[in-house]
């Protein structure tokens, strides 16, 4: 059987869920006739019609709020951020209404919504199109945040996100859409709150997510030849963290490195390491290491862009340092 590209895995997930439940609908810029800027909703407009796959004007805050209102009154909307960075313009609706409204309404309303789209640093897309909003949205109460990283988990997580009765921010990565993989047969879902133990190992735990999983896998290959046995965990759920899996791993390896694409200040790793030190400080044999992007707007120049985000060799060096030198 031929493999499935990640963007098609997402498309299949949405297609299957729309066929399964007529309350599921998609709205966003160019999701309909155009099929989505990364083709995640290709052909769904023809299949489900213009109301279920709604092309919206360029009005992020308003159509995101519209999705909240539609969810409050019974629909299950999927909002596409053509680029997740554009959702900065919808920050108010995502925070105040998608995230907080169920609570402030004392449980009167539920907001079953998925907000999905491409984020991350691509190839020379410039600062505004290279954002990592997961850290910006991390403090919003009432929102689940997941990041897919393979065609298999992209499909299973998307289906789970659509079926979930809570708002889910679903991060895709511009450079992962063409990953290819054979998908499991049939209707399957992946748990939204469970980390993926990618590789078992005993020397050091590496925690990562989204595209950095690929960089970590490259580093792991190199480290294997050095005799360093890495336990690699893909967080999948950025909120809440699967602390059970994370703590279990650290109790085994006693060393931890977080590899992330978001900026260091106020990042995912910052929160994660704070939780790790709170929950298993005594288990650590070395200081935790954070490998994060530079605290700068992503530069356009390709060389500078590469220096902005973490590269595989830096992961190798950090692992060597923490395992071999105990630093």
């Amino acid at each position, binding site marked *: 059987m031929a493999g499935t590209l990640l963007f098609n895995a997402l498309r299949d997930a949405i297609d299957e869920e729309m066929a399964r439940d007529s309350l599921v609908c998609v709205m966003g810029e160019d999701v309909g006739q155009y099929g989505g800027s990364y083709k995640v909703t290709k052909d769904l407009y023809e299949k489900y019609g213009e109301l279920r796959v709604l092309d919206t004007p360029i*009005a992020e805050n308003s159509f995101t709020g519209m999705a909240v209102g539609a969810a409050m009154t019974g*629909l299950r909307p999927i909002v596409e951020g053509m680029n997740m960075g554009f959702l900065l313009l919808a920050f108010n609706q995502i925070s105040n*209404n998608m995230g907080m409204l169920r609570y402030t309404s004392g449980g009167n309303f539920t907001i079953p919504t998925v907000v999905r789209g491409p984020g991350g640093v691509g190839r020379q897309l410039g600062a505004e199109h290279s954002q990592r909003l997961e850290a910006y949205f991390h403090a919003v109460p009432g929102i689940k945040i997941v990041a897919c990283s393979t065609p298999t988990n992209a499909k299973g997580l998307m289906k789970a996100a659509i079926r979930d009765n809570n708002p889910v921010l679903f991060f895709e990565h511009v450079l992962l859409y063409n990953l290819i993989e054979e998908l499991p047969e049939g209707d399957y879902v992946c748990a939204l709150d469970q980390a993926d133990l990618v590789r078992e190992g005993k020397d050091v735990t590496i925690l990562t997510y989204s595209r950095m999983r690929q960089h970590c896998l490259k580093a792991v290959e190199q480290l294997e030849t050095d005799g360093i046995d890495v336990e690699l965990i893909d967080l999948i759920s950025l909120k809440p963290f699967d602390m059970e899996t994370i703590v279990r791993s650290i109790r085994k390896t006693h060393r931890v490195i977080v590899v992330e694409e978001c900026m260091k200040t106020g990042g995912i790793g910052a929160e994660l390491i704070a939780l790790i030190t709170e929950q298993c400080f005594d288990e650590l044999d070395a200081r935790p290491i954070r490998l994060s992007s530079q605290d700068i707007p992503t530069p356009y120049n390709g060389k500078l862009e590469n220096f902005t985000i973490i590269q595989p060799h830096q992961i190798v060096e950090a692992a060597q340092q923490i395992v071999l030198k105990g630093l």
Partner: protein
Amino acid sequence: MSQKTSVSSDQSTAKPLAAGRHGERISTLISSKRAKIDRQIGLELFRDMTLGRRFEDKCAEMYYRGKMFGFVHLYNGQEAVSTGVIGAMKRQHDWFCSTYRDHVHALSAGVPAREVMSELFGKETGCSKGRGGSMHLFSQEHHLLGGFAFIGEGIPIALGAAFTSRYKRDALGDASSNAVTAAFFGDGTCNNGQFFECLNMAQLWQLPILFVVENNKWAIGMAHERATSEPEIWQKAAAFGMAGEEVDGMDVLAVRAATQRAIKRARAGEGPTLLECLTYRFRGHSLADPDELRAEEEKQFWAKRDPIKALEKDLTSDSLVRADELRAIEKEIDAEINDCVEFALAAAEPNPKELTRYIWAED
């Protein structure tokens, strides 16, 4: 800054009418198409408006007595809008979306006074279980989509409810799906992007929604004429090819008639309406507002147009009802309000063990 100074001095020296352009507009507005009502409807409208007025007066009393906290925005003076619009719609069928000035919309929508007052006291018996407060009243049962505290953010929510109506009718084939959504907001909101964005989408998709502008001239301390390049908000509908109408917001029968026309269009799938109700709030922006900018003459001008007194005059001069019947209603309302205060005072506060409840759908 010099420009700002010259604008304000122009305003103070020009002295057109005491109430300014806003007052001129209502003075020259011809409410030719007022709703025809029977005795029963007349009594209901009077009852709803009186409940709104007296509920708010009681809120002020409770606030100053230290029973109520936070920001409390009262609706006095604007009752003809809430009663005129919601009274012409179907409760528990149509949807209503409000702002931070939401107590009276909630009452008109049918949320029991006990639940609203309890919410203001932060009690578990409140319509938002004491988690929302004055600016965040919600009731799924009564189709109240919420009180929204940031300017304009409720409009997209209302648009979403209207989208659901159309989706159920046209995507799911449910011919009975004809709920209309009323989105209430003020003149200050009409300079915000969400207002324009949602007008565009509502007309584009012919959604069953009624945009109700309660133009009370003041966005806290910012006079309408100082904030907008075109003060006649209803005219902005034309930019979207939408039906727009200006109505005397102190005349419940005029508001009712305009709403009935808009609802008829919306239910027939003929799209949205922008309804600008010229009104005035008799109190400050909130109970924390020193209200120093509004001229006494202006307040007097609008006080003479008290919508409840105007309705009473209509009802009694048409001999639809007798004055003593209205006094009896007032007595009933007073009893209801005393009851809701007693109920709210005696009600339990939320259990601290449930502090984190309602974050997630399953909880």
